[in-house]
Structure formats: structure tokens, C-alpha cells
């Protein structure tokens, strides 16, 4: 590992003020991804500001009937929190399908949003990768891309976002509260938090330099009864998804009043399926309706050489997740 300077921030102001607002400084949460990346020489920060002790460690109801998840609360604590389990079981299910118990114990909510792609080209420093080394090219486009994006990729980058939690948050229309460097705050809708690669794949999110995530807010949800998170993967645990689906249905009198739907591991960001959600509204739940929603969801998919299967697999997974969600009642 390269030498770096470590400081532990005791206050938010101290944290943001010590940020140099450039690539050389990183906030450190649980470190489950950043430390790995430093060992691999992918991330080369000169300064680490530990923020795990900052006072964003609670999970509390919001005035508007939602729930606020502190950025420094661990994934384990969040997934098992009574309020989350009761009102946002879809999020709980997504979070518990991620990584391992040990990693979830360490990982923070804020850090989960900022984890980086697991694209092998990104990790292997001898390979070209525009995300790690802008301008060096994308090795995966012409190389091995079985696990890569089918939506929203650019000729600069075909990587996917690896998080399960974020698929749940995208489906549930969460928002992200951040502290700006000048002390002010702003709120970012979840769908605007992560970026598509475009010409700047090195930028995963729309956070400005030095901005610190303080909490994630969930709106009031009607998806606590009919929900399912399906993660299709190559082994039962400790594997990133081939594709994953977060699905929630709000069913009133055998009619879909509202739905939430997002795909994971198919794009540079969690892939919210707004068109499919709109289609589902007002329909009677049935396999045929779910199949049509899945067809609509994948209409715009553009698979690469080796991941054509993800289109079919995503459709099947959507249908299956919706059926499971529907059957839950």
C-alpha cells in the first residue's frame, strides 16, 4: 500500500474542512471497498479522513412519515432495524443479500452508495480502464464483458454498479442528504445520485468534491406487504449479482395501485424501471401483465458481445420477482 495521511474527524465541520476537494482526499467509512482498492493500488489517496465516528448514527422517522437512515449506521444494523424491517422490508431483503455478515457489519450506509464497480479491468492496474485511468481506454468493451452493462453504457465504460442496497433505494425513490463544504446542505434524488459513464466514467456520482453524505431518506412506503428482492448469482452467498431485481407492489382491491421496480448489475447505476412501473399502474396483477412489464423494462437494452443473456435473465427475474411479491399477501 502507498503511504497516506490518516485523520479521524470528530465533527462534520472538521471533516469537510479538512477535505482538499480533489482526488487526493477520501472520506473513510467502513473501508470495506476503499481499503481493498488501496491495497490493489487502484485508489491512491494521500489523505484519508475517517468519518465513521461522526454523529450520523441513527435511524429515525421523518416528519413526512418516512425514515432517515444515518450515513454512518452499519449495513447490518440498518437491514435489521425494526422500522426498516416493518416498513421497508424490500430494502432489508436487498441489503441482506449483499456480501457477507462480516462485511455488512463493517460497511456503512454512506459508503455503500460510494462503492465502486467490481469490473476486473478497473481492479487490474496493468489493464486499460477509463474509470481508473481516464484516457487509457476500456478493456472490457473488446474484451471480457460477460458481467457488464446492458443499459446506459458509453464507448468509454461498460462497468456496472455493484450494490444491492442501492437497487432497493432506487426502487423506493430514496433521497440522499449531503453536507456541502461551505456548511450548507442539499438533497439529491436517488436517481440523480449515481451517474452514467458518458465521457467521464471516472465520476461515479454527482457528489461535488468534499461533499459528505449525512443520511439517506426513504419516503413513506406502501410496499411493505408485497415486495421481493431477487438476486441471481453464481453461488448462494458472497457473490455479486448477474442481475438483481427490487420489486414492490401496492395492491388495492386486486388492482396495482402503485409499484416500484429497479434492476441491479445492468448499468453504471441502479436501473430504475419507470416505464414498467407506469405500465403496471391500474392493472390487475397476473403473470401476463408482469411479462409485459418485463418486456417494456428491457426494450431499450443494448447488450455487449458476451452479455446477451442478461436481457433474457433480467426479464425472467422481473417476472419472478413480481410474482413472488404478488404471492406474498
Amino acid at each position: 500500500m502507498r503511504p497516506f495521511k490518516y485523520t479521524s474527524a470528530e465533527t462534520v465541520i472538521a471533516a469537510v474542512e479538512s477535505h482538499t476537494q480533489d482526488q487526493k482526499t477520501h472520506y473513510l467509512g467502513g473501508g470495506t471497498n476503499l481499503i481493498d482498492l488501496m491495497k490493489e493500488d487502484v485508489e491512491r489517496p494521500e489523505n484519508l479522513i475517517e468519518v465513521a465516528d461522526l454523529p450520523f448514527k441513527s435511524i429515525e422517522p421523518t416528519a413526512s412519515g418516512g425514515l432517515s437512515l444515518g450515513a454512518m449506521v452499519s449495513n447490518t444494523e440498518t437491514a435489521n432495524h425494526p422500522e426498516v424491517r416493518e416498513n421497508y422490508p424490500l430494502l432489508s431483503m436487498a441489503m441482506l443479500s449483499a456480501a457477507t455478515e462480516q462485511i455488512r457489519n463493517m460497511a456503512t450506509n454512506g459508503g455503500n452508495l460510494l462503492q465502486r464497480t467490481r469490473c476486473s479491468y478497473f481492479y487490474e492496474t496493468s489493464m486499460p480502464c477509463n474509470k481508473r485511468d481516464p484516457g487509457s481506454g476500456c478493456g472490457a468493451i473488446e474484451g471480457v464483458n460477460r458481467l457488464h452493462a446492458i443499459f446506459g453504457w458509453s464507448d468509454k465504460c461498460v462497468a456496472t454498479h455493484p450494490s444491492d442496497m442501492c437497487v432497493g433505494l432506487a426502487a423506493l425513490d430514496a433521497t440522499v442528504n449531503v453536507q456541502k463544504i461551505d456548511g450548507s446542505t442539499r438533497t439529491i434524488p436517488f436517481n440523480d445520485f449515481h451517474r452514467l459513464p458518458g465521457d467521464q466514467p471516472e465520476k461515479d456520482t454527482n457528489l461535488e468534491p468534499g461533499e459528505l453524505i449525512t443520511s439517506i431518506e426513504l419516503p413513506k412506503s406502501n410496499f411493505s406487504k408485497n415486495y421481493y428482492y431477487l438476486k441471481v448469482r453464481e453461488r448462494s452467498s458472497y457473490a455479486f449479482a448477474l442481475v438483481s431485481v427490487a420489486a414492490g407492489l401496492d395492491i388495492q382491491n386486486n388492482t396495482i395501485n402503485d409499484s416500484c421496480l429497479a434492476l441491479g448489475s445492468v448499468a453504471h447505476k441502479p436501473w430504475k424501471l419507470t416505464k414498467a412501473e407506469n405500465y403496471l399502474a391500474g392493472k390487475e396483477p397476473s403473470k401476463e401483465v408482469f411479462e409485459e412489464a418485463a418486456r417494456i423494462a428491457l426494450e431499450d437494452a443494448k447488450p455487449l458481445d458476451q452479455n446477451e443473456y442478461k436481457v433474457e435473465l433480467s426479464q425472467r427475474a422481473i417476472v419472478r420477482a413480481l410474482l413472488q411479491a404478488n404471492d406474498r399477501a
Partner: protein
Amino acid sequence: MKTDIKTGTGNPIDRIDGKLKVMGKAKYASEFPVENLVFAQGLTSTIAAGRITAVDTSEAEKQPGVIKVITHKNAMKLKTFGDKLPQPRPDDISPVLQTPEIHYYGEFIGAVIAETFEQASYAARLVKFTYEEDNPKVDFKKHEKDAYAPESINGGSKTDTSWGNVDEGMANAAATVDVVYNTPIEHHHPMELHAIIATWDGDKVTAYLSSQMVENSVKTISKTFEIPKENVRVITPYVGGGFGSKLQAREHATLGIMASKIVGRPVQITVTRQQMFTTVGYRQHNKQHMRLGADQEGNLTALVHETVSETSVTEEFQEQCGAMSRMLYKTPNSLVTHRLMQLNLPSPRWMRAPGEAPGSFALESAMDELAFALKMDPVKLRIKNDTQHDLSVDKPFSSRQFVECIKMGAEKFDWKNKWNPEPRSNKEGNWLIGYGMSGSSRKAPYSESSAQILLNREGDTLKATVELDATDIGTGSYTIIAQTASEYLEIPVAQITVNLGDSNFPVTPGSGGSWGAASYCNGVRAACEAAKKELKQKTNSTNDESSVVDLMKAAQVTEYKAKGTAKPSEEFENHSVYSFGANFAEVWVDEFSGMVRLKHFVNVGSAGKILNPKTAYSQIIGGITWGLGQALTEHTTIEPNHGNFITRTLADYHVPVNLDLGKTDVIFLPEDDKIANAMGVKGIGELGITSIAAAIGNAVFNATGKRVRDLPITPDKLIKKEAVQSA
């Protein structure tokens, strides 16, 4: 007087070294407290073909703590293979840094030596190599046409064998199978990283080396550095897994010993997990073309097994994929061939059950396909083609309970009531349920092995210390050796100390190839028997009931030393000595996602005397887990443009997790085979993985009607829109 000490062989006692291990007190190679120790970090190539044209070490050398940077430019000159393309042997030379030429991505090209591990690994990133890059040859399909017949294949096996006329056999068959199976590159990843601490004292080397074979490591080091064998000491008391990757003192060992010579201090080098993908061997990609024919009753009329594999440009290695096809079934017409191509990849080497692991997948899947074509129960097809004579070498089997294994497994699994020949006939919700089985066999090798014992008597109490250079690679060697001594000295295990893994002790063949337990336990037996015989002579005793402690009392000695050696008999050489087994699998396949879950597995083995049912059970569970990985999750992917393995961490390379393994029954059939060796012991390490993947693949077919012939069976392959077969 004979007493039942309850810790002799056959008792399921706990590991005698278990407590040391869970307390962290068992010392592994990199953990020995050696004074004045410095740390080396290996450097590896980042191109797959070409040569180094320049090296810039200046930045690295400036760093605090850095002692030396070694590359081909300033390396010790070592013996090399020259222009010869060697077949790997675990006692052969292991040269490194002798040329600027690059043969594969991830080849050792240097080392940074520093005062601390952190300093070495940081400075390692600052060494800059400039290359002249050639186009790497890494495309299996493209270079398949260049495949040639090597003179011999792994372990001296014959490249080609044949009898009868397979074309006639195929033409006369009532049903045939003509299919191609591909098993991908797979990696063994023992938990303990490969490591060495090397020290020179004058022209003598001491190496704390994670190794499966002490004697061969001594020979490799001695030959590589051209020093007498007596000048090399290898110490490896505990080994955290080997799986064939630690059979030889590989390049990292040479690098560590060389570095120690150059800097004049003890050097520790640990191979990183990423480097283990390229520097310690792996299982090669095997493309296996199977042609089987049978008459209406299921008697085989022809069996053809043709394998094409890849090796490196530096070594010629081909595992004997056709080994099982040569001896498991009775066929009047047989053809087994092996062909090899050279690619710019690291050298494939031995990995748990070389030959059988991939070969059994092809053979036992093809047998299932044949049974399906014949509309016959696959259990019956295998029983029908049993043979008590090894047709490939014209020798009788020393023992063969293949049919008994199948019958026992079928009964335990309730095959008769569960299995339905029609695929997709069993469904629960979204899950398709399927059943599959396979037969297995693995050679039970046995070779010369020695041991020494030191006996200490205090009154009526006898204590013994057993010493031999055998290794415990996690299998339980300490325990079964203590149990052997317990049995032959008639004292409880608690009174026995076992010392292993030191070249100062008598020579054994080490652990690997399933020869360890049989060989070294018989060596220990021979030493115990030698002690007893000598003491009897000393006391002129004719009483066969006398125990060793009785004899020592009669001889009025409190200390006694003895040595013994066991070796294969002529009868052993005149027989084919094998272990046999059968596997039964129940899988559930999610029809939507293509995810496969192993719900139940029954493994039956007939492998001679089971020295310790508890450790043997663990070893078979490990084998099944390996087979499960081979079937469903494990594959190493080659980057087509750069020639590296793009799966380069255990996050990319998926070994199974606990949750993947369902209910598992392991059964050993009693077997008394004194032709195999005096104790009747056969190895089980490789039998445990053999044919596991086939049983799972056959069950997936039974569940889904889809035959995935290219492993692993990942969800993407099962959801492909293709014809579903029906009976």
C-alpha cells in the same frame, strides 16, 4: 497383554493437532521467528509474450527500508532447461529470473527486498519494466489445429491407447453418443498462501517452505542451486492446504533463496493471492470428445475419449483425462488419446485428481447420455459394464467394489423411487427437481516410505515419538500417524508425539496424489514392527502376545530407537490397485433464473481401510465441495487481447460457499485389500472430487432436459432458449 486402546486406526478420534490450530499455535512457513529477517515482494510480468527491454529500479531503491531490487539483470545464474521443453516433475530444477524473455502474463520477473513487508510491497510498485511486446497466443480455439501428441503425459501415462476397432464398435451399436465436453481453466487456492523463509549459512540452505513434499523440495533446491542435497534443510510442519500446487518448491522458493543469498540475510517471501493465479499451477482447459456405443442390452461396443488441452510455452504438461475411460468399464473397442497445444499461459500443473477430475466429467456425463439414448437406468448401465479385470494393462484389480458402491448409494438415495427417466417430470413451485448419478475410480498409489520411533518407558508406561518427513496439508496426517503408532505399539494416542515435515526425518513421498496416507502409515507400521521384532530378539521372547512395553521391561531398557521402511510388494505391481465410488445428486433448478441448488448428495467410497472415519469424512466433504465448484461456479477467464487471467481474485473466481452444499451423506464400504499394502490403506483425497460434477450435471439434465456440456453450469447457460430433450 493386549488391551483395546480405542485410538488405533479405524477410530474416529479428533485431530491431535486441532487445538494447536484453533489456538493459532501451529506454525506455518511464513510464521517462524527468524532473527534478522527481511521481506521480499515478488514482481510479475504485465504482458503475456515478449521481452523486457529496460528496468528502472531507481525510484524503488530510494525508498526507506529497501535493501535490494533483483531482476534478470542481477540475478544469480542458475541451471536452466535450455531449449528443452520439460515435463514438470516435483523434484526437478525450478529456475527463475534467468532471461528477459516473457512467456506468460504473471511470470516472476523480479523481487524487491526490504526491512518490512510494507516497505517491500510499496517499493515493488515503483519498479518500472519496459517491454517489447509480442502478440500473445492465448486462443484455445484458434490454436487447436496445432495440437500435437506429446511423448507421454502426466505421471508417465501413455498418450494414446487403443484396442479393438472403435469404428466397427460404433457402427454396430444400437445407440451412440458423440459429444464434446469442455472443462475450463480452474484454480486451486489453498487458504495458506505459498510462502518461504530462506536462510543461508555458508553453502547450506534452510527453508521454511509451505510444501506437500519435503524430499522433492530438497532435491529441487539442491539441483537448482547446484549444492549437495545434504546442504538443504526443508521444514514444513503445518501446511494450510496444497491440492497439488505445493508439490514442488516453485519459482517463489527459488526467488526467496536467491534473495537471501544476495542480501546475506534471511528472507521471507509470500506469494500474493493474485500471484497464485499465475505462479503455482492450475487445471488446464480440456476439450474432450466422447464417442460411446452400446448394444440394445447396454453392453458397450465402443468407448472413445479424445482430449485436447493447452500447456505453456515453457513446460509440457497434460493431465491424463482419459485415465478412467481406459479402465472403468468393459468395452471390446477402446480408443483414448491426448493432444496438446502451447499457449502463452502460465504452466498448468497438478490440481486435485489431475486427469480424473475433468475426465470423469466427460466419461460419466457421456454414460448418462448413453443411458438416456438407450432408455435405460444409468445405474443399470454402469453395473452392466463392470469388469474385474483392468483391460488397459491386462491385470486383475486387487479389489473392486464398484458395483457394491453403486448399489449402496442407490439404496441410500432411494434412487429406484425417486428417479424418473423423463426430464422435467418433477416440479415444485418454480423449482425443477432432478436426480443424477455417476461412478468413480482413482488409482491408489503406494510407494516406499520410512519412519523412526523413539520409545521411552517409565515403569509400565510407554511414550513414543514418531518422526518422518511426511506433511499434514490439512488432511489429518498427524492424527492417522499417531493412530497407526497407537495400534502397533498398543498405547493410547495421548502417549504419542508425532513430528512431521522436516528433511532431517526419514524420507516419505509426502502428501499428494492420494499416496500419502497409505505410504507413510505403512512406514510408521514398519518402524513399530521393527522395534517389536528387535526387542523380541533382544529378549529371546517367543510370546507373540507381548506388548512393546512388556518387551522393554523384559529387556530392562527405558529407551529404544527403531527405524522402518515399507515398500510395495511384487503382488502390488502385478495388480491394478484402485479405489472406487459412486455419487448420487438431487438438484433443484429455478426455472426462471437458472440458479441450481444441490439439495442432497450421497457419496459411497470403497477405498480400503479407513484410518479415521472423521478426518476421511471431512476430506470427502471437501472433495464434494470441489466437485460442486467444478460443476456450478468455478472458471478462470482468459483476457483475449492481453492474455492475462481476468478472474484474478477470490471475488471473481467463485468457489462454493457453505450454503451451496446441501445435505450430504458419505459412506465408506468395508474393504480389506492387503495387496494394496500391508495395512490395506488406499488414498481418498482425489476420489472425493472424481465424478462429482458429472453426478450434478446429470441431475441438472434430469431436472431441466438441458445438457450443459461446457462447465460450469451457470444460470446464463440454463436460461438459453434451446431444445429441451425428452425421453
